[in-house]
């Protein structure tokens, strides 16, 4: 990756009472890069994402945006910078149609009233550029399948023209076909030059779309890998900590001695 990262976390720590959730975490995301954030349950993935999204302000460390230190104290700050987050529970309004959901909170207006025509036009353009297939943009969200909801939620994050998109387990509840659609969409985001942070438990997905894998373990960085040159097992062992135990340390020592 060339150039300065769009978003960089330097030595970020976060405490909740007696729990040290994050310790000295580093993370870099470049434009047009998909960074997979992996780790076991409780490794601190969600906490890390929430600090970036402004839900939990960081205690120590620096968040850099395009090379400059910034402070993200609330979700609004993150959105203003250009960070869009798609949470696992999607947060769509079931009773509103696709257009209504895409523009919820930033409706286009004309003479002070909703400009449905302009919104529908832009919604269609947005969905077309992402090759998203939906029966109709005027169908209530309740009428869509899980995969379609997921892509609507991702498209919704793009309405504000963000530079970084955070996807929290986007394929967790999806079938084979829908998962492929979402992964296609992630690749299209990369083609558009967006930085993507992808949280996933699914190694196949990570290997399929990510450029870099950042592993968290017990709130600390436990390696960052180029996906192209890293095996499945290496990532798994970094997640589970299998590389760091009595057996591996002994083997490493023996290897050292043998030289």
């Amino acid at each position, binding site marked *: 990756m060339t150039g300065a990262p769009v978003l960089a976390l330097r030595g970020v720590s976060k405490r909740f009472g007696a729990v040290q959730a994050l310790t000295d975490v580093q993370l870099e995301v470049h434009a047009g890069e998909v960074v997979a954030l992996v780790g076991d349950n409780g490794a601190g993935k969600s906490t890390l994402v929430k600090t970036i999204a402004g839900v939990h302000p960081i205690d120590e460390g620096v968040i850099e945006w395009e090379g400059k230190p910034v402070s993200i104290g609330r979700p609004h700050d993150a959105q203003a910078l250009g960070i869009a987050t798609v949470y696992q529970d999607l947060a769509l309004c079931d*009773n509103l149609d696709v257009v209504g959901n895409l523009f919820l909170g930033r409706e286009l207006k004309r003479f002070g009233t909703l400009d449905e025509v302009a919104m529908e036009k832009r919604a269609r353009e947005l969905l077309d550029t992402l*090759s998203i*297939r939906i029966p109709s943009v005027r169908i209530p969200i309740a009428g869509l399948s899980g995969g379609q909801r997921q892509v609507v939620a991702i498209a919704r994050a793009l309405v504000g023209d963000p530079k970084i998109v955070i996807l929290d387990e986007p394929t967790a509840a999806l079938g084979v076909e829908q998962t492929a659609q979402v992964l296609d969409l992630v690749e299209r985001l990369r083609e558009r030059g967006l930085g993507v942070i992808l949280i996933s438990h699914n190694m196949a997905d990570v290997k399929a779309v990510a450029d870099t894998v950042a592993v968290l373990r017990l709130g600390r960085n436990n390696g960052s890998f180029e996906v192209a040159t890293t095996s499945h097992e290496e990532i798994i062992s970094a997640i589970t900590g299998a590389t760091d135990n009595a057996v591996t340390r002994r083997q490493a020592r023996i290897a050292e001695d043998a030289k």
Partner: protein
Amino acid sequence: MSTETPTTPTPPAVDPRLLVRKEGLAGYLDEFGRKVRSGELGSLPVVVGLIIIAAVFQWKTGHFLNADNVTNITKWIAGPGLIATGVVFVLLLGEIDLSLGSVAGATAAISSVLAVRQGVNEWLAVLIGIAAAVALGALHGFFFSKIGVPALLVTLAGMLAWSGLQNLVIGKLGTVNNLNDGVIANLDTYFLGDGDILWAWLAAILSIALFAAGQLLDARRRTAAGLPARPIAEIAMRTGVLAVIVLVVAYVLNQDRGLPLPLVLFVGIVAITDFVLRRTGYGRQIFAVGGGIEAARRAGINVAWVRTSVYMISAGLAGLGGLFIASQQGSADKGLGGANMLMNAIAAAVIGGTSLFGGRGKTWSALLGILVIQSITTGLDMVGAEQAIQYMITGAVLLAAVVLDSVSRRTQKSNGRG
């Protein structure tokens, strides 16, 4: 295996499973049938219900559809109908407001006592009364959205407290008669142009023209933007149906005393609130909060303010409704807005098709629903049925409406449209 696998570079633009509507009238009827089967009943049941009610009472009494009776019904629906419009707003949030009857009563009491006993200018008294109603609504909204007390309990407390306030304001002297030919008195009794038939025709033609122009302009903008638009044939059909209804009503009203002021104000307010709900950012926020609080909050919507303001609007509408009721009964008294006034208003909103579960509904349902209830009440009065029977029949109709709401919700769910 290196068999030739078909590559699919670009997906087809339209999902092949999607039902595409056929052109023309046949397509319209086809889609209508499909919507009904999948539970999107809209206002169909209530319209059918109204026709049945009218037919039955016309057959029983022989003069239910006479001009004077129709005129009376259109006058009587204004007060309870405005309260029902307020109910629609809170139902859209998925909440309830039990205090609206008491708020209506308190408002009428405040305005009447100020105007009649204190000699305050009557317009000013009316404004103070409605402002008081809005303030009471703000109080409910505050306790509900900021303190987090369930709306049912806040408004239950309101129902008791404001009924007490109403009694206190009216005082020992009791009933306050409206000023002769005053503002409040005229709300119910005035006919536009003192019964000049021109007004009813004018209002009818104006509403048809506005509707057609709105639909045509919308269709033209959509076509210009390359979006699918309603075909002209459909617009013509919709305008035609509206024209028949409006012109028949205008004709019937002109057979009696002309266009009643309460009908104009009520329908006008319903139209305005409908516009606010469907066409403004604020209306969209109300639907969003009713559809998913978490989604609304994350979209940056101030949920507490939307909730509070909705309680203010519903209380304000109820206050206005109270003034119409005072006008209609000739006085403000301790019983105004009591008994089952509130239950009728809630029933009207639900019968008209507004969902109890939030996020679905229109203010027009208040108009349709209250028409049903008033028709039943008036019809049963005419056949000389006892009050007890009236209550039971109204209760049965409400139950039928709620059952319909629940069933259609379930059908919609199973058809993927909940």
